[in-house]
């Protein structure tokens, strides 16, 4: 099992729809400061429900919609991210999250597995079956290494509690 493709629509600095095919093994993402590398990992966290807005460096969820969208004055703007996993050579498993924000700033966020709507808890149960856990350090963000060093001993022990 591996991530076969990421598809971002109006997510942070990615305007329009960007499709990124991925292969198994070791892939590096590189590029200048501020070009959108960390945003790509935020898209992964967003779609799989692995972090809140703070963990994606946004004050509120609506800040995740590409700014040029919000500036156009549409009554509803939307951002969407789809993660496609290859379970084996023939079978795919797709997770999609969609965030719709009205002009007044209210929003709705919905998840879907293979285009069937589901709740975050149902998604987490299915992810757990594939050994993908929110506290399993699947995604190590910029600054996580430093926070392990500076957190107190009790907080460090609690990391093992959660995995036990």
């Amino acid at each position, binding site marked *: *099992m*591996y*991530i076969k493709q990421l598809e971002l629509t109006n997510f*942070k*600095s*990615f*305007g*329009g729809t*960007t499709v*990124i*095919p*991925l*292969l*198994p*093994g*070791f*892939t*590096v*993402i*590189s*590029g*200048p400061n*501020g*070009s*959108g*590398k*960390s*945003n*790509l*990992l935020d898209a*992964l966290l967003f779609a799989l429900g692995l972090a809140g807005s703070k963990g994606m460096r946004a004050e509120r969820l609506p800040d995740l919609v*590409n700014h*040029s969208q919000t500036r156009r004055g549409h009554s509803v703007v939307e951002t969407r991210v789809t993660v496609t*996993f290859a379970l084996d050579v023939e079978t795919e498993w797709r997770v999609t999250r969609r965030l719709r924000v009205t002009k007044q700033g209210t929003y709705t966020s919905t998840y879907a597995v293979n285009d069937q709507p589901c709740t975050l808890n149902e998604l987490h149960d299915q992810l757990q079956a*594939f*050994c*993908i*856990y929110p506290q*399993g*350090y*699947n*995604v*190590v*963000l*910029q600054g*996580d*290494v*430093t926070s*392990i*060093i500076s957190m*107190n*001993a*009790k907080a*460090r*022990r609690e*990391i*093992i*509690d959660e*995995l*036990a």
Partner: protein
Amino acid sequence: RHQSFREAFDAVNANFQTIFATLSDGDGYLQLESPEDPFAGGLNLVAHPKGKPVQRLASMSGGEKSLTALSFIFALQRYRPSPFYAFDEVDMFLDGANVERLAKMIQQQSQEAQFIVVSLRRPMIEAAQRTIGVTQARGQHTQVIGLDLTAHH
């Protein structure tokens, strides 16, 4: 509860010792503040990089600390293996030789799981099977370039 913590702790500790020895060629272990009742205390990472006396995280150098923290993260991942991992510039504190060592470890692990690694360091970029470039021209959106999917290893 004690039982399952104990089991997790022993496994992660064993992982930590092997991984720390590979990454920094020294000895390290996890130390509980109160081993009889783990929940009454915390957890310390104790390590001595090659040829130095045992030391706690606080008195290590920036690079030594980050290799110790990285070994702990790898040790947790090995206890509950997952199909993919994503790292964001975890090599920024390391000197060239340590970046190479970390890259070699990721190369080995990437035979069992998918690794997506954001990095600005040349030894890491060179060790990968492929590179995805991103860029953002003045005022434009992020563009994904150079999707060289032909593996060069």
